[in-house]
């Protein structure tokens, strides 16, 4: 028995050793990054941006970990980064709460933390150095302002909500509702979760289109492009014209959505930029060099539609929409 078992174990050990055996180079900045998962094209673009940028820079040694959309995995990863002794930890939090203890541990171990893409909710300052990324509430607001300016002050909106309880779903809804609260004529008459996926987006839209209120729906607000793309199919199958009979607005700005807008099947997408890998490693290098960095670094984001020139920001901070052209579609990487 023992002999046989030993052979198998040796084989298992060998396979693991092939994947293992990374010897670290002390001159490099060791960065541990924990990503939310690989749940969408958007997330994939974000991962590529980080990995590609890390490969480009000779000074960076990246340890990348995928949390598979689970907070418990992410916390384990951050703890392991601390044990491993990385120089900087960065992560894109799955949710806002629950990171306080592990961040304190990082602070005790004197490892600076940079948040990426989503913020965390902690009760004391100084647990993280900087936060780079988008503001989901503002994205919702931008979508709301676009509806007010392009559809008018009277509109019946159907809403495709993201995964129930997730930060982008809650914040985008909050931002959108904040804006339309000022316009009693704009009402959300249908709201249901499409789980951020195409299949669910289509299924939910199909049922919207068969409900008694179906003919009143004038605007569709989807919390991400994938759901909007599914809904476009459902609208076409119902014999309506997406983008005309029902105005479609969503958030993210992926290439497929741009193509739909160019084809006239959708109207607007509020960009949520995933390509902030370069920004991240700039900050990491500055921190490592002992320089101070701003605690909030907004990512550069636009709003794209089929009209152009609409200000969807505030008067003080205007954000003007760009009309989608073939060049913009072609230059889109994700």
């Amino acid at each position, binding site marked *: 028995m023992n002999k046989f078992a030993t052979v198998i174990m040796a084989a298992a050990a060998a396979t693991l050793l092939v994947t293992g055996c990374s010897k670290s180079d002390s001159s490099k900045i060791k960065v541990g990054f924990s990503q939310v998962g690989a749940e969408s*094209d958007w997330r994939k673009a974000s991962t590529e941006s980080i990995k590609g940028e890390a490969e480009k820079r000779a000074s960076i040694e990246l340890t990348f970990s995928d949390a598979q959309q689970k907070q418990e995995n992410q916390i384990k990863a951050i703890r392991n980064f601390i044990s491993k002794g990385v120089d900087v930890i960065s992560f894109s939090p799955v949710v806002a709460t629950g990171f306080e203890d592990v961040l304190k541990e990082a602070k005790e171990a004197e490892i600076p933390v940079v948040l990426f893409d989503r913020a965390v909710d902690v009760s004391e300052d100084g647990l993280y150095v900087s936060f780079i990324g988008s503001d989901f509430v503002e994205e919702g607001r931008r979508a709301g302002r676009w509806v007010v300016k392009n559809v008018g002050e009277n509109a019946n909106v159907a809403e495709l909500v993201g995964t*129930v309880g997730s930060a982008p779903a809650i914040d985008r809804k909050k931002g959108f509702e904040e804006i339309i609260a000022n316009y009693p004529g704009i009402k959300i008459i249908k709201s*249901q979760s499409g789980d951020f996926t*195409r299949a669910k987006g289509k299924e939910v839209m199909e*049922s*919207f289109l068969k409900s008694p209120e179906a*003919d009143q729906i004038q605007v569709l607000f989807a919390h991400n492009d994938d759901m909007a793309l599914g809904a476009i*199919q459902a609208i076409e199958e*119902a014999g309506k*014209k997406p983008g005309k009979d029902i105005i479609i607005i969503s958030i993210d700005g992926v290439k497929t959505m741009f193509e739909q807008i160019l084809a006239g099947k959708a109207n607007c997408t509020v960009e949520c930029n995933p390509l902030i890998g370069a920004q991240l490693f700039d900050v990491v290098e500055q921190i490592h060099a002992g320089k101070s960095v701003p605690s909030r670094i907004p990512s550069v984001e636009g709003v794209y539609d089929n009209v152009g020139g609409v200000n969807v920001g505030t008067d003080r901070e205007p954000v003007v929409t760009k009309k989608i052209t073939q060049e913009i579609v072609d230059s889109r990487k994700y």
Partner: protein
Amino acid sequence: MNKSSNKFRHLVWPLVSLALLLLFNAIFTDNFFKIEVKKQDSAQAVQSTAVPDDLPGAAGTAAAQAAAEEVEAAKQTVKESAGQQAVPEKKDDKGVSIFGYYLYGTPIDILNQGSKVMVLAIGMTLVIATGGIDISVGAVMAIAGAIAALLISMLDAGNCIGAGMGPAWYWIIPVAAALVLSTLAGFWNGMLVAGFGIQPMVATLVLMVAGRGVAQLITDGQIITFDNPGLVFLCNGHALFLPFSVWIVVAMYVIAGLLTRKTAFGLFIESVGNNERASRYAGIEARRIKWLTYVICGFCAGVAGLLAASNIKCADSNNAGLYLELDAILATVIGGTSMAGGRFFLSGSLVGAILIQTLTTTMYMKNVSPAIVQVPKAMVVIIVCLLQSPVFRAKVLSVFASKAAKGGVQ
């Protein structure tokens, strides 16, 4: 009682539950049973020209009615002419009906969206009947969708064998590849369970965890979109007034039914599920039977995966078929198949799948807050299962009986 009533007795309770749910919808949901007959192109044209953008409400319905009437009229003429001409097996480029007409409405949606779980449930029923379980079907769906989408995108780009056949026919290659791959996945599960004697839940857990990774590996983590008419037709096209996916379900149900009820295969399955050792002594190749059920289940998962990909015209490795294994198991058990094995009802599983989809669609239609959707779903499941349980019925009946008896005494 006679034989036929016994044969269908297992169907009574799921059907009663389904009827109750439909009744609820008939009363409380407007338009639930409204089915229109649509003609793909002209009906669309009529509607969109008749509806001005600022008057969607009343005009929309009027236009729809007008369209429906027109379609009715047109249907007559087509029926007449169809008698004279040979019916052309024409595949429209937009993935529409063979005859150009189809039914449109919520019940049709339920059938179409429920087709995935129905197909899965057919395979799952056979596996559960042998006393096993397959929790990897969701992941196998993702693999099937991924390989189909990858191949079709390669064919569209022209760098794959068979591209010369042209887009009207080469979709057969990805479909076949997806089915072969998913059948292999089923073979793998069968090998672990029947070949190596690993517990079914653990054995299929391996593929459940790893399968989605394989699917992502195939698509390189990307969502691959396609618009090949053949592939899109599977879940978006219509034939004989119904979505094509419904006909796929019907075909698979008939084949599975013939296979299990007209050959000894079904008996073998039940025998293995009842007592594996005894059936081995009786000369049944228990291993091979079990193995085969997993292979069939894998094939079914492949079909379901193709339907899921076709429905949204893309392969989404992360979300395709996610948690659908649970729905498939639920459908099977609601349909009266025992999880201990030894007894199975294919028709019951289909009713179970329709019940689950009806429930989901009802939630969407009634604007139930997304947060609580799961609560009523869980309650309906438990109620249906209680109705199914002979113990429960006996207990309830005895309570009624004793009350009646007391009433009689007083």
